[in-house]
C-alpha cells in the first residue's frame, strides 16, 4: 500500500528534475511537498507495524525488472531522508544554480533505500553520488571545488567498485540477473571462509568510503564546503546515512547466516578511529562547514561502533545486546541526520550573511541573526550531546551497549571494548569542544568584519525550515522512546530481538542492570538548575547593565576604521584550538607550528604558520598518489620505445599469455 505510493512519489521527484534546469520557481516547493507527503506516509508505515512488502517495477536492465521493497530498516532511513530533504527544499527555495540536481539527488537516495536488488541499489547509490558531485562543481571556477569534486567522484567510483563484487559474492550461483535480488541473496547459503571475509572487507570499504569512515574520510572536509548549503546539509545528514544503511543491509540482512563474532572488531576499530580523528579535526578546521563535515566523520564513527558491537553480539548469540547496539546506531543515525542538517543550514545562512565561510571572519552574529543562532544552538547542543538533547539520548544508548558488550567474549574482545569506550568518551568531549568553538567564535563575541556587522537574518522560508528541524531535534531529544518504537520493527527483523518493552513513552531502560533515562525529567532538572542559577545571579548582580568598550588585550584603543575593535584582539578560532592542537595534534595530525619572527629592526610582520596533515592522507593517499605517478611515468616511457623494443614488449606479453594457458591446462 505505502510502497507503490512511495514509488510514485520518487517518480514525481524524477519528473520534477525535468523543469528544474530551467530554474522554474515551483520546483523546490513541489519537492518539499513531495518529501512532506512521503515523510508522513513512511511515518504511518512505521507506526502501524511496518509490514515488509516488495513490488516489481517493469523497468530496468534488459531481461530484468527493478525490484523495490519497504521494510522497517529502509523505513527508518526513508523517514530521515524525507524529513531532511523537505527542510532542505524549503531552505533552498531560492536556489537557481544547482536546482537541476536537487530533485535528482533526493530521488536517487530514495531509490537506493527502496531497492530490493543489487542493480537498483547501485543505480540509486551512484546516481546519488553523481548528483551531489554536480552540486560540488557548481562553483567550478574555484580550483578547490574542482579538486574536491575530483576526489569525491573518485571515492564514489571506488565505492561502486567495492559494492558490486560484494553483492555478486552474496548472490547464489547460476542466474546472475535474478540472483542479484535481495530475496535470492537471503535464500542463498552465506559465503564462507575467505569469500565471507571478502564480503566484509568490500562492504566496509565500499559503504565506508561513502559514509566517511576512517581511512576514506578525506573527501568530507573538502567536498562539503564546496557544495551549496542545502546540498551539503543533505550530503552530511542523509547521504552518509544511505551508505550506513547499505552496510547494515548487507551485514545484517543479506549475509544470511550470523557472521563470526570477530567481524565486528574491524568495524569498531575503524569507527573509533573515525570518531577520535573526526572530533579532533572538527576542532582544527578553519572553515565553518569543514568543522561540521569533520564532526560528521566523528558521528559516522560512533554509528559504526554501534554497528560493530551489534555485529559482534549477533555473532556471540546475544540478540538482546545486538538489538540494543543497533538501536543506538539507528537512533543516532536519525538524530544526527536531523541535527546535522539543521546545523549545516544554520551555518550556511550565517556564512552567507556574514560573507565568509572562514571561522576567523565571522563573529557577533547572535545580535543580527537571533533565530539562526538559536537554531544553531539547538543543533549544537545535540551535537555536543548535552543531556536533554537528542544527541545525548542516542550516544547514551551507544555507551550503554558498549559498556554491556564485554560479556560477549574473552579477554581480547573485552580489551577492545574497554579501549572503545575510552575513545568514544574522547570523541564526545572533542565534539563538545568543537561546538563551543564554532558557536563561541562565529556567533558570539564581536563582529570581525564590516560585512559581519551588518549581516541580515535569512528569509522567512529558510527560518521556517531551521525552526522546524530544531523542533524535530528537540522532540527527538525529549521523547526518544517513541522514536525507538518506530525503529523496533527493523531491530526485530535484523536481530530477532527488540526494545519493545524497554522503550516507554517517557522512560528508556536499555538493560536490566542500568538505570533508565527519562529525558523529560532530565530536562526539567536541567531547567530548574538553570533558572535557580539565573535567580541567584540576578540577586547578586549589580542592577542594570552598561555596555563599555571591550578590553583590548593591552593594545591601544581600537582605531577609527575598525569600529568594532581590532579583530586580532579577540579570541579567534585558531587560538581556541591551540591547546587541543598542541595536546593531540602533534601525534594524530602531525601539527607543526612555524613561527617566522622578524629580526629586531626589521619592519615586516611576524607570521605564525600552522601545518596539519591527516594521517590518512599522509600514509594512505599520498603513497597511492606516488604509486600512480610512478606507474604512469613508467607507462609514459613506453611511448618512446624503438620499434624493436615495442615488438619485444608485445612478444613477451604473448609468450607470457601462452605460458599461462599451457600452465592452466597442465
Amino acid at each position, binding site marked *: 500500500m505505502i510502497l507503490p505510493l512511495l514509488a510514485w512519489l520518487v517518480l514525481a521527484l524524477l519528473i520534477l528534475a525535468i523543469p528544474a534546469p530551467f530554474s522554474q520557481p515551483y520546483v523546490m516547493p513541489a519537492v518539499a511537498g513531495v518529501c512532506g507527503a512521503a515523510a508522513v506516509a513512511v511515518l504511518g508505515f512505521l507506526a502501524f507495524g511496518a509490514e515488509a512488502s516488495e513490488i516489481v517495477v517493469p523497468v530496468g536492465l534488459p531481461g530484468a525488472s527493478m525490484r523495490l521493497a519497504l521494510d522497517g530498516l529502509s523505513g527508518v532511513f526513508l523517514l530521515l531522508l524525507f524529513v531532511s530533504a523537505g527542510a532542505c527544499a524549503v531552505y533552498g527555495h531560492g536556489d537557481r544554480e544547482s536546482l537541476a540536481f536537487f530533485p535528482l539527488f533526493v530521488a536517487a537516495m530514495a531509490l537506493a533505500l527502496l531497492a530490493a536488488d543489487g542493480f537498483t541499489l547501485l543505480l540509486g547509490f551512484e546516481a546519488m553520488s553523481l548528483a551531489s558531485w554536480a552540486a560540488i562543481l557548481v562553483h567550478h571556477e574555484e580550483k578547490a571545488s574542482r579538486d574536491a569534486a575530483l576526489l569525491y567522484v573518485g571515492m564514489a567510483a571506488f565505492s561502486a567498485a567495492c559494492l558490486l563484487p560484494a553483492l555478486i559474492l552474496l548472490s547464489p550461483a547460476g542466474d546472475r540477473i535474478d540472483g542479484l535480488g535481495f530475496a535470492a541473496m537471503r535464500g542463498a547459503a552465506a559465503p564462507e571462509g575467505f569469500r565471507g571475509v571478502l564480503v566484509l572487507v568490500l562492504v566496509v570499504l565500499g559503504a565506508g568510503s561513502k559514509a566517511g569512515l576512517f581511512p576514506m574520510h578525506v573527501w568530507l572536509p573538502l567536498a562539503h564546503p564546496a557544495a551549496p548549503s542545502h546540498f551539503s546539509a543533505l550530503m552530511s545528514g542523509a547521504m552518509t546515512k544511505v551508505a550506513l544503511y547499505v552496510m547494515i543491509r548487507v551485514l545484517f540482512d543479506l549475509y544470511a547466516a550470523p557472521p563470526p563474532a570477530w567481524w565486528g572488531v574491524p568495524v569498531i576499530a575503524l569507527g573509533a578511529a573515525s570518531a577520535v580523528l573526526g572530533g579532533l579535526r572538527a576542532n582544527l578546521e578553519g572553515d565553518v562547514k569543514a568543522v561540521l563535515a569533520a564532526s560528521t566523520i566523528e558521528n559516522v564513527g560512533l554509528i559504526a561502533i554501534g554497528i560493530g558491537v551489534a555485529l559482534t553480539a549477533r555473532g556471540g548469540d546475544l540478540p538482546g545486546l545486538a538489538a540494543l547496539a543497533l538501536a543506538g546506531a539507528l537512533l543516532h543515525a536519525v538524530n544526527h541526520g536531523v541535527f546535522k542538517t539543521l546545523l549545516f543550514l544554520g551555518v550556511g545562512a550565517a556564512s552567507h550573511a556574514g560573507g565568509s565561510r572562514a571561522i576567523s571572519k565571522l563573529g557577533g552574529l547572535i545580535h543580527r541573526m537571533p533565530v539562526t543562532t538559536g537554531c544553531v544552538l539547538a543543533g549544537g547542543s545535540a551535537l555536543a550531546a548535552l543531556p536533554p538533547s537528542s544527541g545525548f539520548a542516542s550516544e547514551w544508548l551507544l555507551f550503554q551497549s558498549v559498556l554491556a558488550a564485554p560479556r560477549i567474549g574473552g579477554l581480547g574482545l573485552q580489551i577492545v571494548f574497554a579501549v572503545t569506550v575510552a575513545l568514544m568518551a574522547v570523541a564526545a568531549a572533542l565534539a563538545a569542544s568543537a561546538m563551543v568553538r564554532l558557536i563561541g567564535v562565529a556567533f558570539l563575541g564581536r563582529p570581525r568584519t564590516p560585512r559581519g556587522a551588518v549581516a541580515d537574518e535569512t528569509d522567512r522560508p529558510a527560518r521556517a525550515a531551521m525552526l522546524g528541524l530544531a523542533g524535530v531535534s528537540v522532540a527527538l531529544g525529549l521523547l526518544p522512546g517513541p522514536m525507538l518504537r518506530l525503529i523496533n520493527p527493523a531491530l526485530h527483523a535484523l536481530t530477532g530481538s527488540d526494545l519493545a518493552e524497554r522503550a516507554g513513552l517517557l522512560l528508556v531502560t536499555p538493560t536490566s542492570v542500568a538505570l533508565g533515562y527519562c529525558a523529560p525529567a532530565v530536562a526539567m532538572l536541567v531547567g530548574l538548575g538553570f533558572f535557580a542559577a539565573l535567580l541567584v545571579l540576578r540577586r547578586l548582580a549589580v542592577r542594570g547593565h552598561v555596555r563599555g568598550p571591550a578590553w583590548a588585550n593591552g593594545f591601544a584603543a581600537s582605531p577609527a576604521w575598525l569600529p568594532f575593535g581590532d579583530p586580532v584582539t579577540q579570541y579567534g578560532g585558531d587560538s581556541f584550538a591551540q591547546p587541543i592542537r598542541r595536546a593531540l595534534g602533534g601525534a594524530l595530525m602531525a601539527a607543526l607550528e612555524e613561527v617566522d619572527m622578524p629580526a629586531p629592526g626589521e619592519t615586516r610582520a611576524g607570521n605564525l604558520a600552522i601545518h596539519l596533515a591527516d594521517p590518512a592522507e599522509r600514509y594512505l593517499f599520498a603513497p597511492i598518489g606516488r604509486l600512480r605517478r610512478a606507474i604512469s611515468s613508467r607507462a609514459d616511457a613506453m611511448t*618512446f620505445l*624503438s620499434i*624493436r623494443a615495442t615488438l*619485444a614488449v608485445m*612478444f613477451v606479453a*604473448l*609468450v607470457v599469455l601462452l605460458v599461462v*594457458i*599451457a600452465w592452466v*591446462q597442465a
Partner: protein
Amino acid sequence: MLAPQGFGTFAYDFSHLLGGAALVLSFTLLYQRRLAAVIHIYALQACVVGAAAAWQGFAQNAPHLYVTALIAFGAKGVLIPVALHRIVRRLDIRRQIEPALGIFPTMILGVGLVGLAIAVVLPSTRHVQAQTLAREDLALALSVVLLGMLAMITRRNALLQVVGFLSLENGLMLAAVGIEGMPLVVELSVAVLVLVAFVVFGVFFFRIRERFDSLDVRRLDPISEERR
C-alpha cells in the same frame, strides 16, 4: 580423395612434412648473416606454404585452396622476394645483418618457443579428436608465427624485421589452410597479401635503410615537450 586423415596415413604424413619444412626454414631464417640469403629462405618458405595449401586443397577436396597456393607461389614466392632484392640494391643497404642477440641464444629461445607452442596447442585442442591433422599442423603453424616474431626482435635490421613479419604471415596461412572447412581462407590470403605489399612498399617509399630506429619518436621530443 583420401578420406580418413589420421595418424600414419599418407595425407597426414605429407602435410606434416610440409609443415615441418616450413618450421625448419623458420629456424634457418634465425641464423642468417646475409640479407640475400634471408630473402631466399623467405621465398623458399613461401613456396613450401604454397605447396602445403595445394596439398590441402587436394586432400580436403577444396579447390579454392588452389587460389591460396597460387598467391603463395606467385606473389610471395616470386614477386615480393624480387622486390626486396631490388630494394636492397636501389637503397644500397649494407648486406650484413647486425644481430641484437647472439645466434646461439636465439636458437635456444626458438626451441623453447616451439616447445611452448606444442604445450599450448596439443592440450587445448584435445577435444577435437577427429582432426589430428589440424592439431599437429596448428602446433607447427604457431611455432612458425612465434619464430617470425623472434626474428623480428633479435635483429637490428629493418629489412629483417619486414621479412620476419612476412614469415609470421606464412605461419598464419599454414594454420588457415590446415583446418578443414575453415571459411574465407582465400579472402584472408588476399587481404594479408595487400597488407604485406603495403609493408614492403612502405619500406621502399620511406627509404628505411638499416634500421627502423630512425623513425624513433624520441626525435619528436622537443615538439611534444612544448605542447605539454
